């Protein structure tokens, strides 16, 4: 039997009431949570928003989110064959879904 990962993802834009959506994806060892999110975008829902550049080198440091209430880089957090709860950073202004405003204030278009 193939194992699955269940990603419960907090969604919504700034100012909206957040909602939880549930995605099931096939589990493969050696995948990251970011791999799982990218898979959901290509297979199910491309509107799911996540900030990332470097995919898996942990060089860009853009993919910081909360997984099970802990702050992690989505590319460094191992995908597991269980339910995982994904949320945007709590300390930053929400943009949409898992994307928060993490740039310095003077690098944002005012």
């Amino acid at each position, binding site marked *: 039997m193939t194992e699955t990962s269940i990603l419960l993802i907090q969604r919504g834009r700034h100012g909206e009431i957040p909602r939880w959506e549930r995605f099931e994806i096939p589990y493969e060892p050696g995948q990251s949570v970011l791999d799982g999110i990218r898979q959901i975008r*290509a297979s199910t829902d491309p509107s799911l928003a996540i900030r990332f*550049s470097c995919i898996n*080198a942990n060089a*860009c440091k*853009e993919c910081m989110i909360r997984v099970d209430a802990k702050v992690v880089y989505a590319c460094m957090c191992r995908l597991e064959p269980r339910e995982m709860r994904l949320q945007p950073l709590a300390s930053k202004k929400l943009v*949409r879904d898992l994307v928060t405003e993490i740039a310095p204030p003077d*690098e944002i*278009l005012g």
Partner: protein
Amino acid sequence: MARTHIDTDVLIIGAGGAGMAAALSAAEAGARVLLVDRSLIGRGGATVMAQMTVAVALGEEQPDSVAAHFADTMAAGRGLCDARLAAIVCQDGPAAIRRLDAWHVGWARHQDGRIRQAHAPGHDRPRCVYVDFLATGPAVSRTLRAQVQRQGNAIRRIGDLFVTDLVVNEGKAAGAVGFSLADGRPVSIAAPAVIIATGGLTRLYRRNSASANMGGDGYALALRAGAELLDMEFVQFFPIGHLAPRMIGMDPIMWDPFRYKLGGRLLNGQGREFLDEYGMPEDGRYVVTRDKATYVILKEVAAGRGSPSGGAWLSFRHVPEADLRAAFGPVIDRLAANGIDLTKNDIEVSPIAHYHMGGIRVTPELETRIDNLFAAGEAVGGSNGANRLSGNAITEALVFGHRAGQIAAERASGGAAWPEAAAQSRLDLVTAGTGQQTENPAALIVELQALMADRVGPFRTGPALQLALAGIDGLRTRLGDIPSGHPGSYDQSRLDWFDLRNMLLVAEAVTLAALSRTESRGAHQREDHPGLDEAWTLNQNLALDGNRLHLTRIAVPATAPELAA
């Protein structure tokens, strides 16, 4: 939503190594600079991903000369380099590397203070500086970013800004239009000089080593603005990209530094060293160039002698644990976290899209045929010919960035009026929307990546390339002419639409050039046209004629510059 309009002197698109270097020198020359990136400033792009080597004739490890570095660069390019551009990289490289040293980038040093230089494949001597451990790219990015921030208001930085098109007025660059990712708001930027520093196109391929934002945006921007592209068929595959076992939090090109420092053995599926069977003996050193190593690994796999996942084995089991630890310290722990012990396990590697030799055609002033439209870094075509020498990419980013910034600043004085009429049709696309979504553009991107990997990869044939062109055409029909959805807050699916629009144009450029070049040279290998054909010592030029790409063959620029011996 109301449009935001910004006025600047020099607009730089892309805030990686080349863009930041350009911003610094344009600001130093007195221009008002606007540095924009689709992602965060100084985080995306390829520079931050670089693991180790930066080639430069410093002569710290042993005596060296610009002429020797130039000779190796030209030889690697297999007859197709623009010697004028290659000479600029080699000549201006030492100053660029010393400038970073003065900014405390942290080049690895010997105990006596000399900068360490490693011997990379294709070089006649140790020439490549680096920052330990696997930290060259992040260190270079961080250092440039700190300098850019120190310029305060002289360099305005805006992230999350996606440029959809350039604006040209009467044959001269006038600025750009795009949208803010945070809220979908249209943005117009008036700039009398524009520098494209968006890097390469590796995202066109399924397995690649660069950031997700390198889908060839800059090439598409240049084409639609009326500029030309050069030698688009030459995509560099990095031979020993990580294949298996799957790892998290590691760059797939991480094995390169291991080979520089420790050699390592490349084995086929039968556990036998095979490079010497192709006339490329290594003797435990790392000497075979990227195009050749890619070729032989894939040949072994095709002959049924690949590793289980379809690549080659890379083995360090003969290297004592203490040596591994001394050379790579914390990286050994990161490997352990992924269940890999190099004293016991071999890993599997295979070629992975890494860099683009082709790019925007420029003069030695780095200017396109559109006045005041410049390119810098990997976006530039011509300096690397058919194959890039290891270590020249960061050097090129710094040197071309610096030069383009200086020249653009000179040209920008006097300003330019914003041509609202010329910008209008391009702005219309920014605000257009079908209101619905029939296709998933993220899925279409995955389809394109598979198509390019399977049909326009390291080995090519006429029929496969024809199939690729048909496939690209089909994807274009499914994408449609109008972006899906409506402008809005971080609409990633809309961003995918705009990305795919660029990626399809660039994929077509690569495929057309590959189909036309009926020979094998460097990174372009035609199974149906094996061997280098001297008559093909030509560059291929592409331009948009209406909606169609028009290809011409042109002579390789012959001017041989004077270089210090």
